[in-house]
């Protein structure tokens, strides 16, 4: 729904106040608001990072001041992303150049990416996601040790090798491994994702909290709960399938639990620098 002329006038005044040096056509800002606001223009404008939307809008139309301002303000952030992805194939400067051109230059069938910024979150956060996404596509390479093969959610979550199932009586091994895989399938998808990122991708609790926008204690609690659920479900499944006595089950699963810890430690130690 397009903004009314009153709404647009107020929006332009807010932008002028925040960025007196930005020369931006009212109609361009109006078009950007119309595109991103959806049905509730008033609600959108109340929450919108309007100055940043105006900069993005200006930059998408080739406004030099807007582009320079975005690059200046977010230099450190973009540098850190480029550093993370720099490789012999793509130097940091190459990556920055590629990112600049994606952000600010139109391709034959695509407008500059900066035009996609919708003002709903901070421009910094949006730039970070966009840059990481672009660089993953660009530098996707076979030797990435932390690359996740996730066609099926479970097999890589439980590595029988890591669980040292050989410590369990041979006749139970297959059943225990299968129960763990089945148990992983039954976890809440969000919790399974959290556990996988923790166990397989080696993300620390700090990192998971930061990337999922949740409190550190919440992340820690959810991981603990998911691991507990995994063990409980697997234990129930093994009990059903093998008709084992409680003492045998207890022994098997105390071993499994201690090996899960080992798995975590190994993941953390083998984390790429």
């Amino acid at each position, binding site marked *: 729904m397009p903004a009314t002329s009153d709404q647009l006038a107020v929006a332009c005044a807010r932008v002028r106040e925040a960025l007196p040096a930005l020369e931006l056509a009212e109609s361009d800002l109006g078009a950007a608001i119309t595109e991103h606001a959806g049905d509730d223009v008033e609600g959108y404008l109340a929450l919108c990072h309007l100055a940043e939307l105006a900069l993005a809008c200006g930059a998408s139309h080739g406004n030099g001041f807007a582009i320079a301002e975005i690059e200046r303000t977010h230099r450190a952030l973009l540098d850190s992303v480029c550093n993370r992805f720099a490789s012999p194939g793509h130097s940091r400067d190459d990556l920055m150049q590629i990112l600049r051109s994606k952000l600010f230059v139109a391709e034959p069938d695509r407008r500059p990416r900066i035009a996609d910024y919708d003002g709903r979150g901070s421009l910094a956060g949006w730039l*970070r996601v966009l840059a990481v996404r672009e660089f993953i596509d660009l530098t996707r390479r076979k030797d990435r040790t932390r690359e996740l093969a996730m066609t099926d959610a479970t097999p890589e979550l439980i590595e029988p090798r890591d669980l040292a199932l050989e410590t369990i009586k041979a006749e139970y091994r297959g059943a225990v491994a299968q129960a763990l895989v089945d148990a992983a399938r039954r976890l809440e998808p*969000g919790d399974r*994702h959290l556990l996988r990122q923790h166990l397989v991708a080696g993300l620390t609790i700090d990192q998971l909290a930061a990337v999922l926008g949740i409190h550190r204690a919440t992340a820690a609690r959810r991981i603990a709960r998911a691991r507990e659920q995994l063990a409980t479900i697997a234990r129930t499944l093994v009990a059903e399938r093998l008709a084992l006595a409680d003492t045998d089950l207890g022994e098997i699963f105390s071993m499994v639990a201690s090996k899960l810890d080992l798995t975590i430690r190994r993941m953390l130690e083998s984390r790429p620098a």
Partner: protein
Amino acid sequence: MTCPSAAAISQLLEGTLAEPARVAIESHLDGCASCGELVSELAWVVAPPRTAPPRYRLVRELTDAWLADDLERNEPVELVFTDDPTVLRTAQIWRELAQPGLVEVVDAGTHGDETYVATRIVDGVTAIEPRTLETVGALHRAGGVHGSLGPLVGGPGRPNDPAYRAPEVLHGAAPSAKSDQFALCVALWEAGVGRRPFAGATPGALAVAMQSAPPASGALAPHVVAALRRGLDPDPERRWPDLDALTAALERPPTRRWPYAILALAAIAITFAVVLAAL
């Protein structure tokens, strides 16, 4: 669900998504390889791996601390990182006190923007016990604040479980001797009754529950209930002046004479009133 936009992922990181949207994106991440990888990469960008001061080598992340090797003393330690610089002062006082019942603080300092405290690894952490009141009291007299008391007493600087945080701390005030007192009373109540005095799934709900006195429990002697309730008063000023006063109130049942005398007087007055009304 189609892959979330850069804007949606960015809002996920910033913690500004509404709950249903956050849950939907997390579910999507579980099944989508490329979005899972995106988030995993973002984690390394927004929260680079933690580093430690040169004296330590990080071994493993624990729930609220890090297990590390102290390369100077060649022994394992627990490292707690916090953005609260006042912990340094507590750690200093802590080291000088060196009381039994206090986890030994090996070292404390700043690393980057953060404060860290290294404590010697003891066999688990100390469960709350009578001595704890005395020990924390000594810490208070020396001008320190524990700040993270609960049923288990660890070193300084750890994040405190909201259930043991005083309401003023839940509302953003800095920990104080009075909030330590509150935390100890929650833990003592829990130990005596078998459940916490206040129930609430979120810090907000807890803060509301803490506005009224916890229900009486037959598991505790009446004078203990009274002493703990005062320590659990939502107004810090109305709690016990210090832990010595709390300890004294916990140990000594109040003299019975006065209450009985008052009851007797009240009974006589009621009898008079009834008699008068009947006339």
